């Protein structure tokens, strides 16, 4: 198993012009023992869609200089780009093929598409991926699970066609079992009640044990963003996608029993409990051969109580995730993807998180768990 960093982790430092792209690559190459993998979001790290030949030369100079390796490029698609129509699958695939060629030019081995990318689009781009000897992976992001059609259809396609060029990029957020403490703290700064945070943690535990007040199957089909906007619509209008109405009603009742005079925000906080994937480690182990690379997602590295100098993310089961991949014989990269910085971005710069320190702690944890 190899380690690296998605430079997504340094998005805040880049926004504030505290770290240049070269600084970020140097940090990975020089300050994270054993790590050499570089992952980027193309539209974050690069002049898009063409940074120019001089940049490409500089990019490879950096890789040499800092001993780093381009592993995976993360790409997106915005279906309203043309504004006069919604892009069809051919148009999305055309953009993807361009991004694949772009990634290849920069020496990346893999391209990651969003969890919402239709299989049809991936299949249309597959000949280009195969021609270039690369791999294409769909991100499996919470609240999606490894179980279910979105992953199964990819595995089935790969096995039926005997290709390893298409696969998955598990985001370790799927191994989260409660809302992160930094998100709950942000909600409380915005006026949510402590009882709502406690309710979210309690409901998460119940759902994890299979003792929750509703079934989870329909929820896991939605992205977290869509779930949040649908729940907000439900609170405002009483309407939602039919499949979500039952769970939403049960959720509201759960909150009413625990939170005194709940506000809309309090309901939203309790609803964070349904953003967890509840996926199985055994499925992870079985699917290891289809893993293109991994997003080592985390939101906050805090010291493990009673173990000075050792860190964990208290809301994500990393021990289980790493063990499953090890047992499955995983040889690829886990690239750190720090995301919790955004939960302090309502504050002043001085009160925001230190991305460099958080990623260093994460790598300390990865080294401990991989060696275990």
């Amino acid at each position, binding site marked *: 198993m190899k380690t690296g960093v998605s430079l*997504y982790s340094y*998005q*805040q430092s*880049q*926004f*504030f*012009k505290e770290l240049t792209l070269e600084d970020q690559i140097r940090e990975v190459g020089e300050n994270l023992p054993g790590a050499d993998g570089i992952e980027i*979001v193309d*539209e*974050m790290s690069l*002049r*898009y*869609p063409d940074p120019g030949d001089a940049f490409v030369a500089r990019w490879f100079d950096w890789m040499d200089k800092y001993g780093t390796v381009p592993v995976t490029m993360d790409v*997106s*698609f*915005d*279906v*309203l*780009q*043309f*504004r*006069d*129509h*919604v892009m069809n699958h051919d148009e999305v695939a055309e953009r993807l093929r361009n991004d694949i060629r772009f990634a290849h030019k920069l020496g990346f081995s893999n391209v990651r598409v*969003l*969890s*919402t*990318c*239709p299989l049809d689009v991936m299949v249309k781009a597959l000949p280009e991926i195969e021609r270039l000897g690369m791999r294409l992976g769909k991100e499996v992001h919470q609240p999606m699970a490894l179980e279910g059609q979105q992953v199964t259809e990819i595995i089935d396609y790969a096995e039926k066609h005997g290709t390893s060029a298409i696969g998955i990029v598990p985001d370790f957020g799927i191994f989260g079992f409660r809302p992160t403490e930094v998100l709950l703290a942000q909600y409380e700064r915005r006026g949510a009640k402590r009882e709502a945070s406690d309710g979210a943690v309690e409901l998460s535990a119940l759902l994890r044990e299979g003792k929750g007040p509703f079934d989870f199957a329909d929820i896991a089909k939605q*992205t977290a*963003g*869509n779930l949040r906007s649908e729940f907000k619509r439900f609170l405002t209008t009483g309407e939602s996608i039919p499949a979500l109405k039952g769970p939403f009603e049960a959720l509201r009742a759960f909150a009413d029993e625990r939170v005194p005079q709940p506000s809309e925000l309090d309901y939203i906080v309790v609803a964070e409990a349904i953003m967890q994937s509840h996926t199985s480690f055994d499925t992870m182990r079985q699917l290891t051969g289809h893993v293109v690379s991994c997003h080592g997602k985390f939101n906050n590295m805090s010291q493990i109580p009673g173990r000075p100098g050792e860190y964990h993310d208290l809301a994500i089961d990393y021990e289980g995730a790493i063990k499953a991949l090890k047992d499955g014989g995983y040889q690829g990269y886990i690239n750190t993807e720090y995301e919790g910085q*955004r939960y302090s*971005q*309502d*504050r*002043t*710069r001085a009160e925001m998180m230190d991305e460099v320190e958080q990623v260093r702690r994460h790598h300390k944890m990865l080294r401990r768990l991989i060696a275990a």
Partner: protein
Amino acid sequence: MFDNYLVRADSLRNDLVDGELVGFQLAVRIANYRGVYLSLHTGYFLEVDGVLYPREAQTFEVNGKPPRDFGEIRTAVHEHWDYDDEAILHIRAPGGLPAGEHVVRFQQCVIAAYGYLPTDEEWVKAPPSPGTGAGSDKTPHIVTYTLTLNEPAKA
């Protein structure tokens, strides 16, 4: 994201054209962790001292080009607004703003998304109204800034 930093704190100034104050301007950043195609950028909810300045009063200066209205920005389908870059939002307001502090309520509307959404067809017909939270990407609430007016900028 970056709630307090989407507008640069020292960027509020009046726009001076041929010796006449035609409006004011603010320097803005994209409320996301990535850039997007410029066409997806559909305008701002902007209220200064209780006065609402609609999309029709706004022009947008980015990528070294002169300010464009949001009808023109809509056609910039192959031009990208990169993550690192600041842009200038100009507001038509004859006479500009008076000196001193101003309360600015602000929300950016960018119809970028994670793939297909149920609202896609509706937003092809008309993008959501700025300020509703819809199509506002990673900062779906209105952010309030208190900004001091600086020396005017000459066009």
